[in-house]
């Protein structure tokens, strides 16, 4: 850039690449007990977008965990006497057409949705990481083959595929859902992670590990992965929210695991029983908001991570923030947290 050389290049990162340890050098008075948060958490909390996301997500997780205590026993309990009631003190979110309490369905459903989503995301992320790095590291034929598979998976529309697969299965358990979601959602991130791994491939530490005779898998998991942790984590978050959405969607269509309480299932029954057209909005609104809040929280976390790693996207905030810590930190003590995109 000819125009502006903002600051002395020595002290400020020129490219949107390296991040300082947030919080700067250790404060004086280390004798006092300080509550040390891990670096990455502090980083995420410093950005308002990801901070909001983390707060909302934590709230939802906490609600899911304490569901047994705050909600009535079994969410699938029904009593026809209480059917189709709008929200009241006794039934905070109202009841379904069969008299099940929607509040408890939403609370218990949080568990299902979160666990299924996380499991599917974990599976997809593992696949994406392994295949992506393998492709980047091996190059050549292996790379071409993996690329081909990834491209094909990206081109075949996932939801129709999932619908068709679901239709073949007679019993749909949580496990099968996790499997089919994980096996179809890995493609997108595989490509991105491969790109990042390509940038790392020629770095000295990889080359020296190779020369030292470390096996391929050892290099992938021992060298590449630790240096791509932040990108892998971001990949996980992305697939997480896509998995939650997709899974809820499938349930809504009636193609999911219909026995467990979950947000999509609640909405499915409501749709099927035409509650909606009769003006009963509560079986839709509450699970829907829960779903939307979870997804939005994850999206905001991602947006915050994006801003943190690419300073240009940030607005200059007058308060303390990542800027101050960048300057105060001075010459960075820790190695880069994240490679630029």
């Amino acid at each position, binding site marked *: *850039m*000819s*125009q502006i050389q903002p600051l002395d290049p020595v002290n400020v990162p020129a490219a949107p690449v390296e991040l300082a340890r947030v919080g700067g050098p250790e404060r004086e008075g280390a004798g006092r007990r300080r509550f040390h948060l891990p670096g990455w958490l502090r980083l995420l909390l410093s950005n308002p977008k990801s901070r909001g996301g983390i707060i909302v997500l934590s709230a939802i997780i906490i609600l899911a965990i304490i569901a047994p205590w705050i909600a009535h026993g079994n969410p699938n309990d029904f009593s026809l006497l209480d059917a189709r009631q709008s929200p009241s003190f006794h039934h905070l979110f109202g009841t379904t057409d069969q008299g099940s309490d929607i509040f408890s369905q939403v609370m218990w459903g949080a568990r299902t949705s979160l666990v299924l989503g996380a499991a599917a995301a974990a599976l997809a992320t593992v696949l994406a990481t392994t295949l992506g790095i393998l492709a980047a590291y091996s190059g050549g034929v292996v790379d071409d083959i993996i690329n*081909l598979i990834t*491209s*094909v998976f*990206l*081109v*075949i*529309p*996932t*939801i*129709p*595929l999932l*619908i*068709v*697969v*679901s*239709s*073949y*299965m*007679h019993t749909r358990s949580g496990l099968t859902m996790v499997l089919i979601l994980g096996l179809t959602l890995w493609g*997108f991130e595989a490509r991105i992670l491969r790109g990042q791994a390509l940038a790392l491939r020629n770095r000295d530490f990889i080359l020296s590990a190779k020369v030292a005779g470390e096996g391929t898998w050892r290099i992938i998991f021992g060298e590449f992965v630790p240096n791509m942790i932040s990108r892998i984590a971001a990949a996980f978050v992305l697939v997480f929210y896509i998995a939650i*959405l*997709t899974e*809820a*969607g499938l349930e*809504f*269509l*009636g*193609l999911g695991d219909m026995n467990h309480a979950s947000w999509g299932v609640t*909405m499915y029954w409501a*749709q099927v029983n035409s509650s*909606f*057209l009769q*003006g009963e*909005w509560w079986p*839709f609104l509450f699970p*829907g908001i829960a*779903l*939307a809040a979870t*997804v*939005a929280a994850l*999206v905001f976390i991602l*947006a915050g991570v*994006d801003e943190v790693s*690419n300073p*240009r*996207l940030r*607005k200059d905030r007058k308060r303390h923030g990542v800027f101050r810590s960048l300057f105060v930190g001075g010459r960075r003590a820790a190695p880069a947290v994240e490679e630029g995109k």
Partner: protein
Amino acid sequence: MRWFIRRLGFYFFAIWVAITLNFLLPRLMPGDPLGGLMQRLTPAQIQGNPGIINTFRVMLGGTNEPMWKAYPEYLKNIFTGNLGISTSNYPTHVTEVIGRTLPYSIFLVGVAFILAFILGISVGMVAAWRRGGIVDNFVMPSLLALGAFPAFFTSLVAVYFLGLKLGWFPIQHAYDSGVIPGFNWTFLSSAFRHAELPMIVIVFVFAGGWALNMRTIMINTIEEDYVGMAKAKGLHDRRVMTRYAARNAILPPLNGFAAQFATAVGGLVFIEFVFSYPGAGWTLQEAALGADYPLTQGLLLVFAVCVIVANFIMDLLNFVLDPRVRTS
């Protein structure tokens, strides 16, 4: 030119994978899809179409026929256009069912998705150009928030408020009952009217993603030297924004368009479901619930082909718009 051949080759390969996937899936799943299918047909129906059992067998496996024997026959069926008979619409052929429903989907998705793209790109462009302005601070976050809600939820809300409560839009089906499909004004206007609300939903669900993408890339593009030079040359602000910044920034999102198309197809299914809009997506869902395997297979294939075609069109567009691609 060589690049074209490679892309085409890849797309044909992808189509082949889709076909083969259709072939393998029922055979890999536990249970007996063929048996399940046959149970839905009455003897009379089967007798009416003698060859159909064989076609089904080839499509779905079951029985002990080895795969390598069934596969060529399966391929032959596909290429002669024999996709079987839809059990839920017996005795209509799958091809006919698809032919009846696909145009509605294409109409809906084609128009709405392009609109979403245009809206999103414009919002993203202006948001990046005037950081901190109304568009950046207000319009963009709103679009993003809208996009964060799952497509079916937004559809439901739209149906509830705009359709049911306010009555501004019709909320079900593709056209008013009693109207006969055909190339006449009554039908076309009715069809269009019914498509309005689903289209609005699609636009608002997808525009946010585009806007964010465009904004990010635009912010980076604005830093480029040629944008600064354009300003230095004394060009009008708007021209610099569009011809210099946006024109360059739009290339990556355009490429993403094709990738997003697959997602759009997914979202389409939900939206059609909520609106009872008889397009290919709604049909797929009904078929899946009714275990109408020939139809689901056929639709999956059609969806895959559509996405591939969209990808190919995007490749062509990229070729036209970016002279750097042409030289290589």
